[in-house]
């Protein structure tokens, strides 16, 4: 082999080596970029998934809060209408005093309340011992009850077995109406003033009011 051939061989080998070095480098560079791109795509997918999850959670929170506010709005409307009904009922008591209610005069209504209170106080009393009870009314209601009426009630209840004496007290209550019946010694009483009855029956009344108020058709 001549010197020129040797030189040609050396050059060919160098060119071949150069191509190999560059090819390896290009391949490595390409892999680096491909790997980074894949990593970035994966990261992007993770970000999207995480943000979507957060978004859905936030959306659900907003919807829950809105539904709660909607319920509060309905409750507030119910409460408002219940209050309006109770207010109206208390206002109508004045009308009841002059015109009665469902065919009952106000005197008869008060008599009924006195009767119920007296029966509650004497329930379980022995027949031999008597009960001396007094009836307390508001200034406005006092004219509706007479001594004769009280006597009749007392006689009616006494006939059931317990000896009762009912008298009208000089004391007056501050109330929209109704009565307090109590023992003369003041130890026991039944408060049938309307405000008290309203408070006493409040829970059941509210149920009744809601059923009646929001009945459709």
């Amino acid at each position, binding site marked *: 082999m001549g*010197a020129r051939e*040797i*030189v040609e061989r*050396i*050059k060919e080998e*160098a*060119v071949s*080596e*150069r191509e190999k*070095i*560059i090819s390896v*480098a290009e391949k*490595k*560079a*390409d892999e*680096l*970029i491909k790997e*980074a791109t894949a*990593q*970035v795509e994966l990261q*992007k997918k993770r970000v999207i998934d995480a*943000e979507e999850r*957060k*978004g*859905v959670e*936030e*959306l659900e929170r*907003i*919807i829950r809060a*809105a*539904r709660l506010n*909607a*319920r509060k*709005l*309905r409750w507030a*409307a*119910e409460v408002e*209408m219940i209050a309006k*009904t*109770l207010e*109206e*009922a208390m206002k*109508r008591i004045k009308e*009841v005093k002059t015109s009665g*209610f*469902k065919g*009952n005069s106000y005197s008869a*209504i008060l008599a*009924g309340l006195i009767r119920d209170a007296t029966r509650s106080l004497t329930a379980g009393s022995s027949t031999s011992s008597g009960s001396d009870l007094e009836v307390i009314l508001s200034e406005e209601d006092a004219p509706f009850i007479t001594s004769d009426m009280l006597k009749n009630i007392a006689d009616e209840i006494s006939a059931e077995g317990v000896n009762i004496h009912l008298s009208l007290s000089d004391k007056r209550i501050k109330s929209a109406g*109704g009565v307090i019946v109590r023992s003369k010694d003041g130890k026991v009483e039944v408060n049938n003033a309307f405000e008290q*009855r*309203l408070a006493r*029956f409040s829970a*059941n*009344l509210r149920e009744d*009011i809601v059923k*009646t*108020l*929001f009945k*459709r058709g």
Partner: protein
Amino acid sequence: MEEQNTMAVEALKLIREGEEEGRKLIEEAKERAAKLIKDAEEEVDRIKEKAREDAKSLAVQISDKYAKKGKEEESAIMKKAMAEVENLKSIAESNIDPAVNRVLEKILGLV
């Protein structure tokens, strides 16, 4: 003999030059390869930096999308609730007399 020696020296010189040229080619190739890798690494940094910025922007976009949807849902729920409340009030107004009577019956001791 002297002529033969001269030819041998020439041949060796040619070979050395060839070897030198080959070394240079490989050296240049190594430098080019190193630049290719360096450029690729810089490109990777750019890709990652852009991805970080895109991720922030994407997060804002997704969050905004759900916030907007949330507002729409909230508005629809409240609108429906307001309509229901108006309807409830209207029903209640039409039933207020029987409800008042029910209260009166109870507090007047008629039931």
